[in-house]
C-alpha cells in the first residue's frame, strides 16, 4: 500500500556518518619571521578522557611539505615534534603553504609574511623612575610621562608591542613582597592603532629594555581574544589551519631600545 511505502521511505533513508567523540587533530605551532629558518612544531591535544586512542601517526616523523613560490620542500624532523629546513629562509611578502597527512586527513595551513614596521619611533629613549619599597609608603614624586611608540599603519594591520629587559642581572624598581618576581618581558595586547603607550609602572626592573614592535596577522591577534583562561565559552582562535589547531602565522618586527634609570 502507498502508506506503507511512504512509511518505509521516511524511516529507512540513508545512515549519516557518525561523529566521533575525540578527534585526534594535530596542534601546529609556527611563527615565521623573515631571515629565520622555516620551522614549526607539531604536537598532540591532551584529551580529557583517559580512554582515548591517538592515531598511529608518528608525530616525529611526519612528511610535511612546504609550498612557496611554486617550489616545494619537505621539512626535516628534528625530534620532539619539531621540524625545520635550514635551506629555506623565510622572506617578507611570500606566502607559505604547508600540507601533511595526519589521522587519515589532509592537514593544511597557509600564511604570509607581513611587512616590516615602518617609521617606528619612540617619544623618549630614557625614563627616570623613583625606587620604592613596601616600607617607604607610596612614591612621593610625580610619575614621568608614558613612552609613546608610534609607527605607520595606514591599512589598520595588527601590531603588538613587547618590552624585554635585557640586563643580565635584574634590579627591581620596587620590592615584590611575598609574590613571585615578575618576568623580564611584558606585552601589550595586539592593536590596530598606530601607536602604543608604555606606562612607567609597566616597568618592573631598571636597565636597558628592548622594545619589539611586531607586525602580526589577525590569526595571531585572535589568540588574545580569550578573555581569560576561565573563559565561559570555548573559542578556538581563528586560524588558517584545516583539520588541526594551533597557530601558523607570519610576522615581522622592528626594535628600539629604552633605558630605565633610577631617579
Amino acid at each position, binding site marked *: 500500500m502507498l*502508506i506503507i511505502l*511512504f*512509511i518505509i521511505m*521516511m*524511516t529507512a*533513508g540513508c545512515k*549519516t*556518518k*557518525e*561523529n*566521533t*567523540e*575525540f*578527534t585526534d*587533530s594535530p*596542534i601546529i*605551532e609556527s611563527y615565521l619571521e623573515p631571515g629565520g629558518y622555516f620551522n614549526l612544531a607539531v*604536537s598532540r*591535544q*591532551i*584529551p*580529557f*578522557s*583517559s580512554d*582515548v586512542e591517538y592515531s598511529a601517526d608518528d608525530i616525529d616523523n611526519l612528511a610535511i611539505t612546504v609550498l612557496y613560490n611554486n617550489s616545494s620542500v619537505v621539512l626535516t624532523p628534528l625530534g620532539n615534534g619539531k621540524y625545520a629546513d635550514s635551506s629555506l629562509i623565510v622572506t617578507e611578502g611570500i606566502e607559505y603553504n604547508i600540507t601533511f597527512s595526519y589521522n587519515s586527513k589532509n592537514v593544511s595551513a597557509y600564511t604570509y609574511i607581513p611587512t616590516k614596521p615602518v617609521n617606528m619611533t619612540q617619544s623618549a629613549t630614557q625614563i627616570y623612575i623613583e625606587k620604592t619599597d613596601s616600607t617607604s609608603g607610596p612614591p612621593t614624586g610625580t610619575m614621568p610621562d608614558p613612552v609613546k611608540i608610534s609607527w605607520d599603519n595606514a591599512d589598520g594591520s595588527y601590531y*603588538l608591542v*613587547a618590552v*624585554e629587559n635585557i640586563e643580565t642581572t635584574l634590579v627591581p624598581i620596587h620590592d615584590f*613582597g*611575598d*609574590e613571585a618576581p615578575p618576568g623580564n*618581558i*611584558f*606585552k601589550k595586547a595586539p592593536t590596530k592603532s598606530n601607536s602604543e603607550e608604555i606606562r612607567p609602572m609597566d616597568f618592573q626592573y631598571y636597565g636597558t629594555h628592548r622594545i619589539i614592535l*611586531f607586525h*602580526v*596577522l*589577525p*590569526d*595571531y591577534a*585572535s*589568540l588574545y*581574544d*580569550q*578573555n*581569560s*583562561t*576561565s573563559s*565561559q*565559552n*570555548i*573559542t*578556538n*582562535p*581563528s586560524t*588558517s589551519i584545516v583539520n588541526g*589547531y*594551533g*597557530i601558523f602565522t607570519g*610576522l615581522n618586527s622592528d626594535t628600539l631600545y629604552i633605558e630605565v634609570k633610577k631617579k
Partner: protein
Amino acid sequence: MFFFGNTFAQQQEYYFNSPGNICYFKYVCYTQTNIYNSIKQPFIFVLGKSGETANEAFTEDTLKNLQAFNNYMFVYLPNKGNNAHDKLQCLDAFASLQTYNYKYGHSNLFLTVNDPEISQSDISANGLNSIFKNVRLASPGTENISQEPSIKIADDFKETHIIYEIETKHEDVEYGTYYTEDESTESIENDQSVKPKKIYFGPPASYNFTLTGIVRDKSTGEALPFATLMIKGTTTGTSTNVDGYFTLLKVPSDTSVLIAQYVGYGNTGIYLTPQTPKKNFTIEIQPSTQNLKAITVIGHREDVVITDKSDVGTVKMTPRKLELLPNVGERDIMRSFQLMPGVSASNESSSGLYVRGGTPDQNLVLYDGFTVYHVDHLYGFFSAFNSNALKDVELYKGGFESRFGGRLSSVTEITGKDGNQNFFNMGADISLLSFNAYVEIPVGKKFSSFFAFRRSYKGFIYNKIFEKFNGSTSSVSSVPQGGGPGGRQMQDISITSYFYDLNGKLTYRPTDKDIISLSIFNGTDKLDNSSPMHAFSFGASNSDFSMNSTDLTKYGNIGSSLKWSRKWNDKLYGNTILSYSNYYSNRDRSQERTVTSTSGETTTSNNGVFENNDLKDYSLKTDYQWDIANFSQFQFGGFGNFFDIDYSYAQNDTSSVLNRKNNAILAGGYLQNNFKLFNDKIILLPGIRTSYFQTTHKIYYEPRASITFKITDKFSLKGATGKYYQFANRVTREDIMSGSKEFWLLSDGNSVPVSSSVHYVAGLSYEPDDYLFSVETYYKKINNLTEYSLRFNPSPLGTSYDENFFNGYGYSRGIELLAQKKSGKFNGWVSYTLGEARNHFTVYSDTYYPANQDVTHEFKIVGLYKYKRWDFSVSWIFATGHPYTAPSGAYSITLLDGTTQDFFTVTSKNSLRLPDYHRCDISANYKLLEGIKGDKRRRELGYIGFSVFNLYDRKNIWYKQFTIEDGEIIETNVNYLGFTPNLTLSFILR
C-alpha cells in the same frame, strides 16, 4: 434520516433515513382514533416476522384492533437482516428519534417482536430493555403469536396513567460533579449509549433544516469549544467553534437524535422535537454521574464519531479530570501532552513542547487568541498555564491548517474559562509545591468573570525531599594527563526558585449573538540557581581561591486579549481579537571570584553572562467561518502584527557581545475551505496563507492541504502537507560550558533569515469499540535555521560578534504508534515514537549531525485504574538520551613573549549522548464526596491526591556544565528532579 409523509386510509407510511443508510426503511404508523400528534399516547412497536415489510407486519397484526389499545399508537417496522443484531440494530435510534416532549415516558413504550429467532438476550444486548417498559417476544415454535391476542397482552402493554406536567424549561441546575458509588456490578462499558428521557414520540414536523446553537457545560454554563455534534445513525456532524457555537446544516428531521461529544464528558444524546428551537438551541452536557469516566484522550481524527475535523495528528485534552494523570505536584496540560506519541517527554526542563523533532519555539501557543512566547515556569518543570483556568486545549502536531501561522512545527490552542455563568463558585488546591485558587463571579445573566492565582513555595517537606535527593554531592574524578591542562572534577548542584501566575477573564454577552471577552495573563518566575563552588586547590597556584556563582534569572509573560465574537447569521460567524503579548527574560549568570593572595590581599572580579531578552507582540486579527453548504465551510481571515524584539548579551560586566533591536510589521490573510465529500467519507481542507514581512519586503505564500478518507466507520487514512514560515525565532546560543540557551529574535532577513518548513504527514487509524490504534509518520524539512555560537571566528578579522550567527538547515522524520484503551475500569495507552532530527550547519560539521532535541526511541506507557472512590495511575517513560557537545581536549600555545596560553578543543557537534532518560510516576486520588439527603448521588467536594514523581529516583541528567579553572575542567552534572512525592488537597465550592 429522511422522512416522506404518505397518507392513505388510516395508517401512515414514512421512510426512516435515506437510501444507502443501514437503517433505511419504510415504516407504518397506525392509530384507531386517527390521532397522530398526541403526546399522551402509549406506543406499541411491532417488529414483523423475519423478512416481512412494515406493510406486511401491519396487515398481519391484530393487536391494533383490540379495544384495549384504542388510544394507542402502533408503529410497524420491517424485519431485515440475517441475525438478531441486524434486525434490532436500528430500533434504538428509531425509537429514540421521536421522543423529546413525550411526557408519557418509558412507562408507555412497548415492543412486540413477532420473530421467534429473537430472544430476550438479543433484546438486552441491543439495550432495548431500557427503552421499552415491556417487550413481548414470539415464543419459539409459535408461528402466529400476534394472532392469538389474549388478556395477557393487554396487561403486558397496559397504559400507565401519568398526570401530564407542563414542561419547565429550566429545571434546577445541578451544580458540581456527582458520583454514584455503585457497589453492585458496574456496567462501565456502556459509555457510548446515553439513555436520556425519551419524551416525544410522534412524527417529525420539519425536514432538512439548519440547526444553530451553542454547547455548554450544564453546571457552569461554560461554552464548550470544539465539542462534536453528530446526527445519530449518520455520518453527518459538525463541531462547535472556539466560542461553543455550532451550525448544523441539513438536519434530516426535527426528531433526529444528536450525539454531543466532548472530552471528559463522554457522549450525550439530545432528542430533537418539533418544539426544539431551530436557532440558538442550547445543548447542555455534563460529565456522566453514573460512572466515573476515565480521562479520555482522543486523537481527534481517530475518533469515529467526530466527522467534521479533518485535522491530521490532532490531540485534544480537557483540563477536567487531569488530576488522574501522574504529575509533579501540579496538574499540567503541557505535561500531559508530553505523554502522547510524537511529543517528547524527556524534557523535564521544558513545558514547551518538542513536537516531532521541532523545538518549543516552533510550536505556536495561543492562549485566548494571543501568542504566548514562553510557557515555562521553574525551569520548565511546570507550565505557565494554570489548569484551573483552562477550558480546552488542542494540539496540532503537524500539517496544520492555514488559519494558524508563524510557526514551523505545531500549534497548541488554549481556551481559558469564561467563568460560571449561573452561580458564584470558587475552589482551591494546595500541594506541597504550590497554592492555587480561583473564583468565578457571574453578574447578572450577561456577565461572567474568572480569576485564578497560583504561587509556588518551598515548604518543609519540599525542602527535605529536595535536599535529600538533590543535595550537592560532589564527586571528584580528576584525570591528570601528563600535567598541564586536563583532568575533570565533577560535582552536582541543586536549584531554588519560585513562580506565580495570574489569569483573569471577563466575558460580556450583550446579545445572543455577541460575546466580548477580555483575557489577561501574567506569569513571573524568579530562578536562583546560585551556588558556592567548592573550589579545590587548582594546579600549581599558590594562592587561595574561592568563587561564588550567581545564576539569577527573572522572566515572565504578560499577555492580554480583547475579543469580540459575533454570529452574524446562521451561516456566518466571526471574531476579532486585539492582543498584546510580552515576554521578558533577564539572566545574570556570573561568577564572583575572590582570590586571596599569600600576602592576604584579596581581589574580586565579576565574570560571566548577562543576558536580556524582551519581546513585544501587538496583534490584530480576525477570523471568519461561513457555512456555504453542508459539504463546504469557507474560512478566511486577516492579521497584522507588530513585533518589537530586543536582545542583549554580555560576557563581562563591561563588554557587550551582542545587542540587537529589531521591529517590523507582519501582515497578511488566509483562505481555506473544508469540503466533506461522498457522504463525509472524504474530508478535504485546502488553504493558503499569505504574509507580508516588512523587514524583507517580501510576500510569503504558504499553501497547505489535508485529506482524510474514512474507509469504514472504524478505519481511516489521512494525509497532510503544507509550507510554513516563521518570522520570530528562538535562536539557540551554543554554550558548551554551561548549557545552551535560547533567545527570541526577529528575523532581520540577513544573518537571521526567515525560517521555513515543509511538512508531509500520513497516517492511519483503526478504532474498534473502546480501543484506538493509530500510526502516523511524518517528514519535516526545515530551512534557514539560525544558531549563535561564539566558538568560531567566522572571519580572520572577526571582532564583530554580530557575525557569529550561523545558518543551516535540517530535517526530522519519524513514526508514531499509539494503542489506547479508552474506557473501562482499567484504561490507558502505550505509545512509541521512532524519530530522527538532524541539522546541518556548515560551521559545525560538513555532515548532518543530531539536533539538540533529537531522540531516537521514545516509549511511554500510561495506566489508569479506578476502584470505588480511588483513582490510581502510573506512567513510565523511556527516551534515548539527548546529544551534547563537550570539551574533549586541550593544547597550549607559546606566545611571542614566551608565555603560554591554553586552548580547549571540543568533540564534534552533538557527538555525545547523555544516558538514556527513564522515569516512573505514580499517583492515587481519593474523592471527597458529600452525601445529599434523599439522593443516592454524592456531590464531589474535591479530592486528596498523592503522587510520586520519579518513583525509583533515577538520576536523569539535564545538562552538563563545564568550567575551566587553571587548566582543569570541572564537569558538573545538572540533574533533573529526583524522587519527589507530593500531596494535593483540592476543594471546590460547587
